[in-house]
């Protein structure tokens, strides 16, 4: 990548972080502006400030997950989701501190939490309901898998609880009516509410409606090595979209796009020019196990493309290294196909880890691509066949040391990693210790929740 491109992306990244900070702190900044209501105890004012910031952060969470391509472009979609996840814990802590600060010095009696008591004002009932929704939201998001909540059901509840948490918190602010004492300050909160409702309409109505108008038809469902299925889709009476190799899309099958039952998968083909898409999907959960039930002609909806995990973002690289584990090979195969299509002469190295030779998904395609590219492939097998001379076990620092030669230089070799999370963490750490510049290492994480 040229320094200009990199600088531009860094500046874009910083810009959106500053916008986020500004919108988060805007309520407190507005509270500072006169006319201010009379001052009260320090602890109460601190509690109010944290509550307002927490609410702004909750409302902004909807913007982070609304799939605005301009916001996600500098970072990649998985980074934005990771931020969404981490920052939600911060927002939760701030919102939790808000009532605690009011109860500890007994500014309000703890009995106000009893929403069924006739003495409890509505503003407190709204606050308690919002907090309960938020607690449910956090518990379900952090422990979805141990609680055995199916992904599609979880997504529906996540949306319902998040909407309830923000809506009831807004009602609480209106009910307290302290820092919204003048019309223009009320206008700010009306603005936040409109923004929030607008985002809901955009994600729940506008986007699904767009998807409904641009359906795809299943052309073929093909079994692949390693318990995977390749799903080939053709746009149905529209041009489809162009994508960069390595990117991904959200797929809705067996259901309407209004039902919010999407799943993210990488493209495993190169952009074909005719809108045709291929996804290679491993049977891992309830949805993925049903992929094989799709028949030619069935309707599927595709929202994409997303992601920053692509060779096309680094056109000036001198060489590319791909490190993949299991089904993490799919975006890599997409990039290899694109490089072959373009007769790209640059040296390429693929380190591909898997259980055994037979279960390496898309291995036959990779071997065919080897003939068309300047590509060296290193398989790392957990259970190698008898007499295997290649790498064994996992993709460790030792394996990387043997294949990633020290003369590979900063800003010239771009490294792409995709696979199971423990493998990606280990490889990222090993590459950092080997002296690879973090900006040259790119990873795609699909374990979003």
């Amino acid at each position: 990548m040229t320094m200009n491109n990199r600088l531009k992306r860094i500046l874009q990244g910083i810009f959106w972080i500053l916008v986020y900070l500004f919108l988060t702190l805007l309520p407190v900044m507005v509270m500072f502006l006169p006319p201010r209501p009379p001052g009260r105890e320090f602890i109460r004012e601190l509690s109010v400030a944290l509550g307002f910031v927490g609410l702004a952060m909750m409302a902004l969470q909807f913007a982070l997950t609304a799939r605005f391509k301009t916001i996600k472009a500098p970072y990649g979609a998985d980074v934005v989701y990771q931020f969404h996840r981490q920052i939600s814990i911060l927002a939760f802590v701030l919102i939790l501190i808000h009532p605690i600060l009011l109860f500890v010095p007994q500014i309000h009696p703890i009995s106000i939490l009893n929403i069924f008591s006739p003495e409890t004002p509505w503003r407190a009932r709204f606050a308690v309901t919002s907090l309960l929704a938020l607690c449910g939201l956090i518990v379900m998001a952090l422990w979805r898998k141990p609680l055995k909540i199916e992904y599609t059901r979880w997504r529906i509840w996540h949306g319902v609880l998040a909407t309830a948490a923000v809506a009831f918190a807004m009602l609480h602010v209106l009910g307290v009516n302290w820092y919204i004492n003048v019309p223009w300050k009320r206008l700010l909160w009306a603005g936040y509410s409109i923004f929030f409702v607008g985002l809901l309409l955009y994600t729940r109505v506008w986007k699904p409606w767009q998807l409904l108008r641009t359906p795809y038809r299943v052309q073929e469902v093909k079994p692949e090595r390693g318990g995977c299925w390749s799903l080939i889709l053709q746009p149905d009476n529209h041009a489809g979209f162009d994508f960069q190799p390595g990117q991904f899309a959200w797929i809705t099958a067996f259901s309407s796009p209004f039902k919010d039952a999407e799943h993210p998968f990488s493209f495993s083909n190169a952009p074909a020019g005719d809108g045709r898409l291929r996804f290679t999907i491993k049977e891992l959960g309830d949805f993925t196990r049903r992929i094989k039930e799709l028949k030619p002609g069935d309707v599927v909806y595709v929202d994409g493309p997303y992601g920053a995990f692509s060779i096309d973002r680094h056109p000036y690289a001198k060489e590319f290294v791909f490190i993949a584990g299991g089904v993490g090979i799919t975006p890599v195969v997409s990039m290899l196909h694109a490089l072959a299509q373009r007769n790209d002469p640059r040296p390429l190295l693929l380190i591909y880890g898997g259980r055994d030779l037979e279960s390496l998904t898309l291995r036959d395609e990779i071997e065919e691509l080897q003939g068309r590219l300047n590509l060296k492939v290193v398989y790392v097998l957990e259970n190698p066949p008898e007499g295997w001379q290649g790498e064994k076990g996992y993709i460790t620092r030792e394996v990387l040391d043997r294949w990633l030669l020290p003369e590979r230089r900063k800003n010239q070799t771009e490294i792409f990693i995709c696979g199971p999370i423990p493998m990606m963490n280990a490889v990222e750490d090993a590459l950092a210790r080997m002296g690879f510049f973090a900006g040259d290492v790119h990873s795609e994480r699909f374990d979003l929740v």
Partner: protein
Amino acid sequence: MRSRLMTALTVAIGLMILLISLLFAAVQSGLLG
């Protein structure tokens, strides 16, 4: 690496929020200014 950067960013945002909120509370309660 990226996870650590993200955690650092979240902590930095948290600290900034805390600082501004403390400042607001101090001014509004009359402790400052």
